[in-house]
């Protein structure tokens, strides 16, 4: 399995997709840095400034997260299915290794690369904000917890992609992954709106439809909990350290905090997907 991990990692560095996304990320970070430098040019001390700055940070993280998800999809969509479709799998699985080793090895190899990449993106965005003189105070522990959840999302997404790639073709895995990610994103937005409606208490009607939106959001989170994790990340990074309420993060922040049950679910979600993917893969005729 260590061999698979090692060579998965190596392969990634040689893939064109990786180079492409790296360039894209650099471009994004430069534009973001440029934007920040303009925004922070005239410092003032009003409360609106802090609200505005936290929104800028949220937006930066949101798009960084999006680019990471893009990289996860591009590099992993054919992790297993590609080996089958090209025929390279024959010479690998006729060796004395178990099939689950390939699935798990790919997951760990890609996962390691994604964690490194995702951490660089997160630390760059947060670092740029600090460097440019953001008024939000970050504590190291908040940054670390934020980082953990920022990396967790792509890993959960990776688990879904790997499982799908072990069972279906590359094309179908692409469709499934994009759909799931889209649903999670829309569901997350619905849940936010629902929570906003409940908070603003626009009569009994608002309360009720707010609740149904929240439920719809939770349901989509069960399909792919990336958005929930993302909200947890913003909460960990911003709220507890600076005392800024969720309201200030704008459309990219988090209104409702995911519950602990959600995280227990996420753990089993990843374990189950990998188990199920490996099991179905082991039963396949190649």
């Amino acid at each position: 399995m260590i061999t698979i991990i090692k060579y998965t990692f190596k392969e990634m560095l040689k893939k064109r997709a990786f180079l492409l996304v790296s360039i894209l990320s650099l471009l994004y970070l430069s534009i973001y840095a440029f934007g920040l430098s303009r925004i922070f040019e005239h410092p003032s001390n009003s409360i609106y400034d802090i609200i505005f700055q936290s929104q800028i940070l949220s937006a930066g993280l949101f798009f960084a997260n999006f680019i990471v998800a893009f990289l996860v999809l591009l590099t992993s969509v054919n992790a297993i299915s590609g080996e089958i479709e090209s025929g390279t799998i024959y010479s690998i699985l006729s060796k004395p290794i178990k099939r689950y080793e390939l699935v798990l090895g790919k997951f760990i190899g890609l996962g390691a690369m994604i964690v490194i990449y995702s951490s660089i993106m997160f630390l760059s965005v947060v670092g740029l904000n600090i460097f440019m003189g953001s008024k939000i105070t970050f504590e190291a522990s908040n940054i670390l917890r934020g980082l953990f959840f920022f990396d967790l999302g792509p890993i959960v997404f990776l688990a879904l992609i790997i499982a799908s790639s072990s069972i279906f073709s590359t094309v179908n895995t692409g469709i499934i992954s994009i759909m799931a990610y889209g649903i999670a994103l829309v569901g997350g937005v619905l849940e936010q709106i629902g929570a906003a409606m409940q908070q603003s208490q626009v009569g009994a009607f608002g309360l009720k439809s707010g609740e149904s939106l929240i439920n719809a959001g939770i349901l989509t989170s069960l399909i792919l909990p990336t958005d929930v994790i993302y909200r947890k990340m913003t909460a960990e990074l911003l709220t507890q350290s600076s005392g800024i309420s969720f309201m200030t993060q704008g459309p990219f922040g988090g209104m409702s905090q995911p519950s602990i049950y959600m995280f227990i679910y996420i753990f089993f979600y990843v374990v189950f997907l990998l188990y199920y993917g490996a099991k179905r893969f082991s039963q396949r005729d190649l």
Partner: protein
Amino acid sequence: MVLETQNLTKQFNGKGGFKEVTLSVEKGQVFGFLGPNGAGKSTFVKTMVGLLHPTSGFAWILGKPIGTVESREKVGFLPENFRYHDWMTGKELLSFHAELYKIKNPGKKIDELLELVKLKGHESKLIKNYSKGMQQRIGIVIALLNDPEIVFLDEPTSALDPVGRIEVREIIKQLKSQGKTVFLNSHLLSEVEMVCDEVAIINHGRIIAEGKLEELLKEHTHVEMIVSDYTSELIEEISRLSKEFQFKEGKLSFKVEDKEKIPIIAKMIIEAGAKLYQLNTQTSSLEDLFINLIGKDEVS
């Protein structure tokens, strides 16, 4: 037995594949597995190395049930549609496969095998830039990396030039001399005839003939004679010693299972006082045998 199967069946939704194959291959044999396109040869080999799950029946490699990790430990495999990771160099590819086998310090072995398949000097090229034949050659190296006890070669010369084919033949002979077992899928009958000790012929997923190559061929020595001054008893006696006997106006045509019968029959003719003008024998080639057997199978 290095390889043994009992009523092994692999079908795809009740179609294709192979049915109820019972085979055994002894150590040190070169075993030829022959059959027309779509007969089930590749399906059989892929089932042996655990890529396909059998529908029913049993099989063992070196005593270990197929599909287990242990059964693949001393096995080498060259797939029919060989494809290797083209982003690696030859050297990287071989190190990767050596690591999959958990071979320690594979450097010497790799060099040796590269020399064997005449790829020395190409090891730092990307696989992407290898020709088809070079890829098949490196596939042979991969199949032999772990010093396997049994090697499955699925049409190992399909992409090779004539010299390459001879080289592969030499490699197979060399493996045999080292006491290794080779399982060779092929439809190049002349090639099989040159290297195989034993063959099985498969058609529509079923084995229609199996045995030592010599014996299968022996059954089919064709004899033609022209005689005169014969008695009907003599002709009767010859017909009893042979198969597919035909006689017309002094012309005899028949097949014998054993070449040794030919001088015996000649002696009988002389001793009976008849005259023997002409005696032609023709050992049928594997090709004749193959066409003959497949033809018969199609009829039935």
